């Protein structure tokens, strides 16, 4: 009996937390128009979320491009297909690695800072103070951050893919000596703007929604103590990363399963 009760309680807890998350997400969406009316706040958040993530995104994209080119070259030469290196790097970056790795880095770099910021605001009772002054904290604090995340993510992912391809160009063309014209033309033949690049952008926008919403929710629901904020930032990274990976599988299945 005890065991059954414990199981039931766990299940109810899980359901309740899912419900709280969903309600929070709906509230967040409702607050978006109010944030659109004040673009200054959104711009400040794009700066805090997007601009400040640039360095890590560009450095990682470059490194991923380098390594992909080196590793793929070793394998592709055994099939005499070293020319298609550019295509493989391009497709893997644009379709998968760009959106996903950017989202994972984004969760670590921007998501944690959002959670910690909101969590400390809550711990310092700034959010309650706003409510007392009849200012809706969701419209004033959360929605601009949400929009900032959604705007920043596709741009960061595009930069990641672009710099990755340039990195692969450096390794493949300048170091290994694959023909530059071949490197580009095989990409132009094999990569479709809407199917590959467009779907990659859609993916990264969805990941932007997931990462930012999770980070804001964890910050907003945090226990107002130092430990609570610490737990909340950890949960942000774990939940957002798992959410991104699960969603990536679903989106890939929907976008690329049919020829």
């Amino acid at each position, binding site marked *: 009996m005890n065991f059954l009760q414990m199981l039931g309680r766990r299940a109810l807890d899980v359901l309740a937390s899912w419900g709280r998350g969903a309600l929070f997400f709906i509230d967040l969406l409702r607050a978006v128009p109010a944030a659109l009316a004040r673009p*200054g706040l959104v*711009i*400040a958040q*794009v*700066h805090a979320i*997007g*601009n400040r993530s*640039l360095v890590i995104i560009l450095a990682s994209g470059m490194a991923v491009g380098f390594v992909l080119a080196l590793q793929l070259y070793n394998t592709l030469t055994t*099939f005499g*297909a070293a020319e298609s290196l550019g295509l493989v790097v*391009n497709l893997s970056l*644009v379709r998968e690695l760009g959106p996903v790795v950017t989202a994972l880095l984004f969760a670590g770099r921007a998501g944690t800072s959002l959670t910690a910021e909101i969590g400390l605001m809550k711990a310092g009772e700034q959010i309650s103070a706003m409510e007392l002054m009849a200012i809706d904290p969701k419209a004033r604090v959360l929605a601009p951050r949400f929009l900032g995340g959604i*705007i*920043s993510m*596709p*741009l*960061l992912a*595009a*930069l990641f*893919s*672009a*710099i990755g*391809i340039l990195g692969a160009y450096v390794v493949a063309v300048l170091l290994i000596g694959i023909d530059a014209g071949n490197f*580009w033309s095989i*990409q*132009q*033949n094999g*990569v*479709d*703007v809407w199917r*590959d*690049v467009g779907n990659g*952008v859609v993916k990264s926008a969805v990941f932007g929604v997931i990462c930012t919403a999770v980070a804001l929710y964890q910050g907003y629901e945090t226990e107002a103590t130092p430990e609570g904020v610490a737990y909340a930032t950890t949960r942000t990274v774990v939940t957002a990363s798992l959410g991104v990976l699960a969603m990536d599988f679903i989106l890939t299945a929907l976008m690329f399963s049919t*020829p």
Partner: protein
Amino acid sequence: MTNKRTEILVGLFVALGALALLFLALKAANLASFTGGGDTYTVQARFDNIGGLKARAPVRSAGVNVGRVTGITLDAQTFQGVATLEIRQDILFPRDSSAKILTAGLLGDQYIGIEPGGDEKNLANGDVITQTQSAVVLENLIGQFLFNRAADGGQATPAQ
């Protein structure tokens, strides 16, 4: 003014992101080759066997891209594969041109090669190319080879 500086930095970030997207679309994908051609006309080519040809495969003449395969269907009357080709408006082929399904390299994708004929009239929108050569299917090739070996009298009996 920190606000103005922030706005400039954000503007820079957005412009950089847009530039990256543009780079992906133009340099690293096929948008440029789409818009380069402009107007196209459509002809159909009937093949006994379409092989591994796919929609969006290139149409080439003398190795140069002149168009794209836009659709592949089966004609239920003749049981032939019908490929719809979109060819650039400024390139006109004689009416008796022939179409072949070729393969780029040993393992490459298949494409349609057009060899111009000698007719004075040109292919127009909606015409059908009847002189075609189907894709080479490996199984048929091996089958033919084995058949020829058997027809030769089978003096070359392979060791069991």
